[in-house]
C-alpha cells in the first residue's frame, strides 16, 4: 500500500487535490492527504501528525512545494524511516503519475514521476512542427 501526502505553504496542496478530483474523480483525490501551512503554524506539527498515524506496512510518498522550504525541511526528518519518500517541487503531473500508478515499487514510481514531471515543463514561443507517425 502507498499513501500520498502533499504538504505545502498555503492552499496549494488543497488546490492540487481539487484539480486531481476534476481529472481523475473525487474518490481518487480523496485518497491523498494534504497539509497546508498557514501563517502562525509550525510545519513540525505536520511531522508529528504524520508520525502518529504512520504504519510500517505502508509506503509514504510525501510531496512538498519548495526544496529546503520550511515544510520540506520539517518533513525531511521523516526520512529516517525506510518507508518514506520525499519529493520537492510538487506539480500536477507528478501527483497524477504517482496516484494513478499501479506499480508496487514505490522507488520506481517516484523516479518515473519525477522524470515525467520535469519533461512536462516546456517553454514555447512558436508552434512546434510535428513529424511523428500518426498513421494507422
Amino acid at each position, binding site marked *: 500500500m502507498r499513501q500520498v501526502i502533499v504538504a505545502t505553504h498555503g492552499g496549494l496542496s488543497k488546490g492540487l487535490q481539487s484539480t486531481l478530483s476534476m*481529472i*481523475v*474523480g473525487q*474518490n481518487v483525490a480523496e485518497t491523498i492527504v494534504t497539509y497546508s501551512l498557514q501563517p502562525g503554524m509550525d510545519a513540525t506539527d505536520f511531522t508529528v501528525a504524520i508520525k502518529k498515524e504512520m504504519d510500517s506496512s505502508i509506503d509514504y510518498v510525501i510531496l512538498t512545494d519548495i526544496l529546503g522550504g520550511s515544510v520540506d525541511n520539517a518533513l525531511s526528518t521523516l526520512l529516517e524511516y525506510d518507508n518514506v519518500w520525499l519529493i520537492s517541487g510538487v506539480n500536477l503531473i507528478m501527483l497524477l503519475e504517482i496516484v494513478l500508478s499501479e506499480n508496487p515499487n514505490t522507488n520506481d514510481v517516484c523516479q518515473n514521476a519525477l522524470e515525467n514531471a520535469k519533461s512536462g515543463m516546456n517553454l514555447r514561443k512558436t*508552434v512546434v512542427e510535428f513529424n511523428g507517425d500518426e498513421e494507422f
Partner: protein
Amino acid sequence: MILNTRVDHRLLHGQVAFAWTNYLNVNCILIANDTVPNDETRKNTMRLAKPQGVKLIMKPINECVNAINQGLTDKYKMFIVVDSVRDAYRLVEGTGNAIKKLTLGGTKATSETKNISKAVNLTDQEFTYLDELILKGVNVYIQQVPSDKKIKYSELKRR
C-alpha cells in the same frame, strides 16, 4: 481491438488522456473527427495531451470507418474519442458490430439540449441516435472519469 469509444466535446484533454488511457490500458487513441485533421492548432493540443507511449491517430470519420473495416486497427488496443453523438453513430453505422461500448463523457449544453447528467446534454436527435444504438446492441453508458459509477443510458428517465 476497440476497447471503448467515448463522446467528449473537448476530444482529447488531460482527464481523458491520463485517467482513461491508464484505466483501459490502451496503446492507441483514435480521434475520429472531420475537422480536427485539417486544423493544425487543435492537432497540436491533442498531441500535447497525449500520454507517452501511446499512439495518436486523428482522422476523418470515413477514413476511420475504412481503417476499422479493413482490420488496420486490429493490432491496437484502441480508445476512440469523438466529439458528438452523431459521429459515434456514424462510426457504429459504418463498422458493423466493431464498436460494442459507448461512453458518454461530456457534451455541451445548448438551448436545444436536455441535461441528463452532470456533464451530458442531449438533443432530441441525439436521443434518437442513442436509442438506435441500443437497438443495435451497443452498451451505452454515462461515465465522466473511470472512478465514477457507470450509469446505463437505457435505464435513465428522460425526456
